[in-house]
């Protein structure tokens, strides 16, 4: 057993244990770690954003290669980016709405076409399946269940009709399918959280305590 000699590993291990101390209860060590984390990650974002977006996609083409291609048009995002900071001045914050307005136009448009194609049209296409596939009773059964489950779920999320009689019965089946899917999500979530713990324990046992090599 060789405890690590590397100060960096010790820093990482102590911060890991500091966060785990929350399990006992909320305490000053945890609070210290949490605030340090928020601060460091915010500082990280600024540096990263400058070097990976603002410098190469705005400053260099705009001020270094102004006349190439359509680079001169980058004056528009340059001005809009400056406008964003107008909200630090009491009377100027209406300017920042112009910048926000460009964002508010682009993202909904991307989502309309993205969701429309892959989550609506494509999903409807994928659900149009034959109930009977010759020589393959299992696929036939699965196709039928998949389509019926989907239709029942859609009926559950149909709000224009009271859930009574036949509609109510179908909606109830829809709920059953939903519950199975939530159970699956539950199982997968358990798996995810346990994995993250396994990862941290591996770090502590291997890199820090030197007990095991993974």
């Amino acid at each position, binding site marked *: 057993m060789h405890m690590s000699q590397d100060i960096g590993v010790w820093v990482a291990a102590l911060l890991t244990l500091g966060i785990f101390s929350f399990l006992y209860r909320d305490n000053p060590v945890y609070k210290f770690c949490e605030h340090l984390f928020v601060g460091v990650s915010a500082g990280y974002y600024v540096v990263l954003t400058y070097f990976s977006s603002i410098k190469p996609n705005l400053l260099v083409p705009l001020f270094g290669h102004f006349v190439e291609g359509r680079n001169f048009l980058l004056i528009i995002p340059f001005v809009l980016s400056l406008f964003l900071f107008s909200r630090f001045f009491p009377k100027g914050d209406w300017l920042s709405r112009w910048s926000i307005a460009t964002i508010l136009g682009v993202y909904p448009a991307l989502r309309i076409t993205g969701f429309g*194609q892959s989550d609506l049209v*494509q999903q409807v296409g994928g659900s*149009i399946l*034959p*109930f*009977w596939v010759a020589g393959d009773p299992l696929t036939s059964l699965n196709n039928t269940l998949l389509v019926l489950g989907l239709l029942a779920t859609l009926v559950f999320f149909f709000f224009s009709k009271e859930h009574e009689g036949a509609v109510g019965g179908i909606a109830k089946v829809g709920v059953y399918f939903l519950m199975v899917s939530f159970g699956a999500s539950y199982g997968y*979530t358990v798996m995810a959280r346990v994995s993250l713990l396994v990862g941290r324990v591996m770090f502590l046992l291997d890199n820090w305590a030197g007990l095991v090599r993974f």
Partner: protein
Amino acid sequence: MTVLAVFAAEAGAFPLEAKDTPNDGGKSVTLTWAPPAEHPAHWTLVRRERGGAFAPVATLDGALARYVDEAAALTNGASYEYQLVADPADPPRDSEVSLPVVPSPDWLDSTKANVLVVTGLFFIVLFFTINQAHRGRRWTFRKIPGLVAIEEAIGRATEMGKGVLYIPGVQDIDDIQTIASMILLAQVSRLTAKYETKLSVPTNSPAVYTVADEVVKSGYQDVGRADAYQGDMVRYLTSEQFAYVAAVNGMMLRERPAANLLLGAFFAESLLLAETGHSIGAIQIAGTANVHQMPFFVVACDYTLIGEEYYAASALLSNDALLLGSLKAADTVKLVLIIVIALGCVLATLGNPSLGNWFSTQ
């Protein structure tokens, strides 16, 4: 000898098909060919503008059968001819010269036609129903059990002389789930004002705090109980995720509310909040559109507004023409889709998959 070489080239020549690349922005030609069985190591692709001389465009792997020429030098509307020249040149296996091709841009990407039709139809229905709703049209919608349960829970809190805790999720005010939560909060505050029940609303963002406080204040005014409104009903705790959870759990254990309403966008904190609420025996009603968190609410809460039910509940309470019109439009399209899928499946079973194919974009 010369005669023989020419003859061999003629015999080995294979057709090269050049076409304007479909559904594109122009300046692009798609070339396809069937490479001869014994192809050379490389092809040199040459191109000439009609009447001009051939010049090399690219060196291609000998096994290729398709190439898209997108060179900046191409001009829309000009006419081009292509040829593949074998490299090494011996034995000669050059392709025929392609028929002339004219690259041009397209106005519509035909592979997206199904998306255009479905999206367009949905928006037409949407504008129609919103317009109807603006003119005062109101449709009947089904009861949402979780919504009925909220009133019962507040009633029970009143009987027990305990409070109601309202947690509006952990997203900022620009999130649509938080906005829906504010609509539900308006209704809840009117009820707690009417029943004279204590209401607590811990928030995790200053902006949500501002809006929530305004919503609660006007809720109390709406039912003529402005006097019962207190400034500390809505509080801003902290923006840090787990610190917020710890603080809210602390409130639950101290104040022991009879009803917990968890309505908004929740992430990993869902199970922590629902667990503590369950342990103090509160009636819990949850609503969120975050599918991952649904299971934790379903098992620990008395009622859960599932996904769209949550939005529908807020639309119904808001009496807002935009929201009601949108709800009706989504319902109408769902009904159409149910019919289309059922019909498509029947057709597919009978051996006609055309409806499914039309919807397919892969």
